[in-house]
């Protein structure tokens, strides 16, 4: 039978490679595996991946290519919000089921007929963080954010959410692309009146640099980062300076510490094992987004009994208690994400690894 054709466009290289690379690897691992086990509905699954090089402007052309040239049945991707937003008009016009792997809430708010997403929104992450801060009695926050879309969106959400949560942002600094030293900004934050906690919004190498700089100048307040830092390379890169840093992350990150009865335990363990076996490197939670996207689509195809796009779309929307790496998804016509904060956990770096908090 005709294979099921899945298309993906991801930031495999460039500044988002840190996210896109594990996403691609995850998709490849599972598509290979599923096809090897006989496929879906007796049809093999074929995956076509294009690398946007982390440039949003490349995304549209690749999506057109996936739709027009490769005639895919569904599209997964858009590692970043920019890449995703750039293709929404095209996807809607062409009526192809599309699952984004990017963070911003605006991707699914307002709901767009063909557009879904799997990662927790940045707002969820910030909410989680703020709740933790609040619980520890930290209300005066200094923020440092990077230059990327993810970084900016985290910052914007933090600014917007803080008043509602009863927090004040006492310092708001940014750093540039490729910066190798953030001590001036941190020095300013340190000098902010009444500072009680520090939050860094960003991902990639700067996460570790910030941790080192924080130790260097002795910032002396609890240090928070976001799920953008949820990978072992953050801890290793910081060379000990990551100790005590707290961040919100998908439960996948601390799969071994999950209680045996945790609903995601089995799925997450299986994913972790499959990935590390294939690529001999530690998992990051980003690959988990791709895992969820892939299986939500495949499950929908199974339920639809074929690749009719409209039917598949409807079935995606009916996703109910799908247990994924990111959490448990229940979508609806008004919710094309279907995750809640409960699927986020707080972790802290302890002895060079992640420690699940309560």
């Amino acid at each position, binding site marked *: 039978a005709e294979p099921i054709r899945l298309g993906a466009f991801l930031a495999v290289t460039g500044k988002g490679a840190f996210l896109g690379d594990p996403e691609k690897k995850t998709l490849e691992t599972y598509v290979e595996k599923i096809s090897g086990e006989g496929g879906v509905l007796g049809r093999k699954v074929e995956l076509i991946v294009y690398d946007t090089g982390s440039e949003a402007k490349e995304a549209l052309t690749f999506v057109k290519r996936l739709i027009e040239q490769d005639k895919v049945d569904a599209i997964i991707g858009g590692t970043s919000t920019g890449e995703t937003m750039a293709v929404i008009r095209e996807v809607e016009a062409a009526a192809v089921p599309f699952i984004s792997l990017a963070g911003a809430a605006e991707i699914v708010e307002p709901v767009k007929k063909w557009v879904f997403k799997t990662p927790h929104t940045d707002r969820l992450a910030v909410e989680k963080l703020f709740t933790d801060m609040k619980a520890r009695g930290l209300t005066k926050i200094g923020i440092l954010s990077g230059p990327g879309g993810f970084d900016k969106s985290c910052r914007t959400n933090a600014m917007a959410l803080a008043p509602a949560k009863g927090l004040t942002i006492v310092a708001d600094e940014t750093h540039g692309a490729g910066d190798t030293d953030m001590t001036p900004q941190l020095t300013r934050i340190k000098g902010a009146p009444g500072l009680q906690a520090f939050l860094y919004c960003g991902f990639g190498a700067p996460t570790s640099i910030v941790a080192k700089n924080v130790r260097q100048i002795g910032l002396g307040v609890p240090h928070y980062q976001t799920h953008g830092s949820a990978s072992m390379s953050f801890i290793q890169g910081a*060379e000990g300076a990551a100790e005590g840093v707290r961040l919100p992350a998908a439960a996948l990150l601390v799969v071994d510490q999950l209680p045996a009865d945790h609903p995601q335990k089995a799925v997450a363990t299986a994913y972790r094992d499959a990935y590390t076996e294939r690529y001999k490197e530690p998992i990051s939670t980003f690959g988990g987004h791709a895992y969820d996207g892939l299986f939500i689509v495949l499950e929908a195809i199974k339920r639809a009994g074929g690749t009719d796009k409209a039917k598949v779309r409807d079935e995606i929307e009916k996703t109910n208690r799908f247990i994924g790496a990111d959490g448990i998804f229940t979508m609806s016509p008004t919710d094309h994400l279907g995750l809640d904060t409960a699927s986020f956990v707080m972790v802290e770096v302890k002895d060079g690894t992640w420690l699940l908090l309560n």
Partner: protein
Amino acid sequence: MSADFLQFLFSGITQGACYALVGLGFSIIYNASQVINFAQGEFVMIAGMAAVGLIDAGAPFVLALAAGVALTVVVGVALEKFAIEPARNASVVTLIIITIGASIFLRGAAELLGGRGFRSMPAFSGNEPIVIGGAALLPQSLWVLGVTVVIIFALGRFFNATMHGKAMLATAYNPVMAQLMGINTRLVLSLSFALAALLGGIAGVLIAPLSLTYSTVGVMLGLKGFCAAILGGLGKPMGAIAGGLLVGVSEAMTAGYLSSAYKDAVAFVIILVVLVVLPGGLFGGRSVERV
């Protein structure tokens, strides 16, 4: 002097020294060929990634650093031999595009061999900050500064006081005449790339503990290094240093006192203003063109 100011200054000088080291590489290749080598940032990246890779593979620290730098020199010479030399008579812009191609190629190769993640290199003398006047300085910053100073003096001597340095300049200004003086211009070109790669490599292993290493670490460093070299006056080793420090310090001061969101923009505004006032950069001197 307030502790904050000192902290900004330390940061600015350290960053500036990094830019200066990269800028020096631009100046050296320019001095031998009038070419702007846009792969200079990649030299920094290669050395860092190679050294870290070796350290992770269990190689002794110093040996890994040396090997990283050596590999960079090999890449530099290869770049000259296989990409610049065959295009000897091409225009300067063509040669610049070739170096852009090379930088893409090298980044691609680094990703294939070293992966797309980031990794850190242990600092040479630990991570315990040194506190001076309330401001904290990492020992690695002192390494960067110290080595930069040594290199400035060595290069200054090389270009001003040795025939080899002058031969290099002659090759740049007029390769035909240089040959007529008995200068082996091919060798000089190779040497200049080797030297620039050596500097890039040294910069790479020195900066790596501060910047971490990843395949695109050289992009921004290369750009800022280019700014440093131009701002100081292309081809002037002292200029690259001055330019690097000016860029680094103005970034840090802007971030510290004005706006961290616009710190890079302010740095570029400063560069523009300086160039409008001194069209040949800080140390560039007057034009020597006559009609």
